[in-house]
């Protein structure tokens, strides 16, 4: 007999918490901000009950980031959640996280901007900021989710990527996804993979904390385990000490990029829907992907051969999948709730192969299936 999965009916924000707990998150620090506060509230309720877990409310988003990086260095799986204004404050320490290679998950529930903007309305205006927000050249992984079920799944994935590649991972939700209440299922333990960071297997005196290897991801000891590593945001050599030598700087920074670059196939996640014979393809992410899904169905009814490429990984940008689609289609349609942030990427990789059209909406309302359908039928 088949076991039945536990079904829940809850907000996207609550699904994020479920996902985090399944992935082994044991430390959450945050600061309240609409529309991400539910993540923090549920964490405050759940974490103290879990085995050896910590919840703490900090004095601002900068402090939240500091606390989770500290806890990450102490060996915890960590997370924080915020929205636009808080995400802006976090940027400096996201860069620090990239530099010291601290695994962590940052959930950003996007709301209308700029500045205080529209606290309770959806937008997708933080896409490029998630990629390039912190100063300096750095690699980063940005994921997205369109349904409540995906909120859970992608949170688990985010933790796995963070631990696997020792990097900050940003989960970009929008207000609609976060505040949609719908049914979702908790996967069985054998249905999902949980990855934890690799700890050093050599004795402390042999250990080089930032040594290059084939994977490019060095093992990470927790504080207090006897390895006495020096952790610094300054550009450091493989022993972790600040360096000014060009050859060491070059090696350190290029390894940071390579450790993500060489695993592109693992990281780039997309979902294709009716794209096999599509003549026009919609490329969407977040809540817009749901509208697009519906619009594609309706366009098919009207005889338009439409398809959908839903981006689950936003950065590194899923170039191969988009190029493949561009070669086959007459037109790519990119609807998004901003003035054209992802369409820049699509146009960049399209590089003249086919036509790229955009739908942009910044009035605090969602892009409806009808709006996408109208564009699909016009092409």
């Amino acid at each position, binding site marked *: 007999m088949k076991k039945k999965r536990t*079904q829940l009916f809850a907000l996207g924000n609550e699904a994020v918490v479920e996902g985090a707990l399944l992935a082994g998150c044991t430390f959450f620090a945050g600061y309240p901000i609409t529309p991400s506060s539910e993540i923090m509230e549920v964490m405050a309720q759940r974490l*103290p009950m879990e085995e050896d877990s*910590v919840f703490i409310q900090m004095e601002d988003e900068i402090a939240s980031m500091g*606390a989770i*990086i500290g*806890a990450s260095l102490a060996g915890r799986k*960590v997370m924080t959640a915020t929205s636009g204004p808080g995400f802006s404050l976090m940027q400096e320490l996201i860069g620090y996280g990239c530099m010291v290679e601290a695994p962590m998950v940052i959930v950003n529930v996007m709301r209308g901007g700029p500045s205080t903007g529209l606290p309770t309305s959806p937008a997708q205006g933080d896409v490029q900021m998630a990629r390039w927000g912190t100063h300096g050249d750095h690699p980063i992984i940005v994921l997205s989710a369109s349904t409540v079920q995906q909120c859970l799944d992608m949170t688990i994935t985010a933790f796995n990527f963070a631990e696997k590649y020792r990097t900050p991972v940003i989960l970009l939700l929008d207000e609609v996804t976060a505040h949609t209440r719908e049914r979702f299922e908790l996967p069985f333990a054998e249905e999902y993979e949980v990855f934890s960071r690799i700890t050093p297997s050599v004795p402390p005196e042999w250990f080089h904390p930032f040594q290059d290897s084939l994977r490019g991801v060095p093992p990470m000891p927790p504080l207090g385990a006897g390895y006495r*590593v*020096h952790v610094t945001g300054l550009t450091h050599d493989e022993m972790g000490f600040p360096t000014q030598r060009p050859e060491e700087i070059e090696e350190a920074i290029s390894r940071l990029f390579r450790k993500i670059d060489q695993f592109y196939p693992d990281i780039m996640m997309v979902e294709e829907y009716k794209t096999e014979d599509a003549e026009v393809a919609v490329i969407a992410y977040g809540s817009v992907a749901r509208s697009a899904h519906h619009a594609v169905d309706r366009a098919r009814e009207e005889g338009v051969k439409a398809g959908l490429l839903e981006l689950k990984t936003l950065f590194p940008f899923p170039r191969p999948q988009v190029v493949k689609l561009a070669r086959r289609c007459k037109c790519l349609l990119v609807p998004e709730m901003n003035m054209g942030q992802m369409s820049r990427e699509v146009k960049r990789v399209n590089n003249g192969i086919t036509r790229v059209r955009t739908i942009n909406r910044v009035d605090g309302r969602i892009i409806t299936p009808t709006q996408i359908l109208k564009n699909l039928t016009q092409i």
Partner: protein
Amino acid sequence: MSEVTQLIHHYLRHNKKFPHMLCAGCGHGILLGSLIRSVHNAGLSKDEVVVISGIGCSGRLAVYVDFNTIHTTHGRALTFATGIKMANPELVVIVLMGDGDALSIGGNHLIHAARRNIGVNAIILNNEIYGMTGGQCSSTTPQDCFSMTTPFGQLEKSFDIVDMALASGANFVARTTAFHAQLTDEVIGQALANPGFNLIEFFSPCHTQYGRKNKYKNAIAMYQDLKSKTMDVDKYKALEESKREGVMPIGVFLKRDDPALETRYAGVRAKLQEAKQKKAEAAKAAQAKPAKAKEPKPDKGAKGKETKQDKGDKA
């Protein structure tokens, strides 16, 4: 002397870090020496000590000592310390900050760390100036003093770190100076043994950036000044109000042992675990019963538990 050599070999990192970058006459090295002696006297192992520093001259101290060391961003050292102490309360966390670090960019974190009484030992190395960036005024530069950004004298008032820590709710507050190495050893030792948020203000003369612009002939003159203007805090309290002008009290201002945040959190967790266990036992007992009695009671109990967990959101 051999003892000192032993300490140096045991606690300082040997490869690639020396010569250090501190100027002649700087007080930071005196603090680092004190810190090492205090940790040694407290009998702590190097593995359990975490030294966290911010940015600036004080920020560079962490790299020289052979503990778990973290050189963080400007002003945020205390937030890292909070995360680390909560994540692993077994660790002994020592935070080294400059005055710009602790009071300007990180002022908010300082008062909140003190308020929440997290078990961290914070040492503020106060040199009354931004040394590493070239001598700009800081929030502890005294009024009317000169710096690169106050060429006509500082107009603003300066912070009193001790008063601020007392007002914010720290467990242990002390002030010492680079001239008083023995006192520094003693207060750091006391802080390491005290629970909760312990704050030590350490006056560290900076002749290179501050002294030269403020008519101190040399570093020695700054140390002599520290010697002449400081007074034990108990004596200072007995002093008449009119005679207090220009006198800097040093010593331990406050010492109490309120439980630290991580201890209180552990307490709450223990309570929750206990309640959870009781509930599980009750459920077990309820399940065991119906085998004897015919009433199918356990269903009710199990259902009640489930709905409570899922808040009745079962589809």
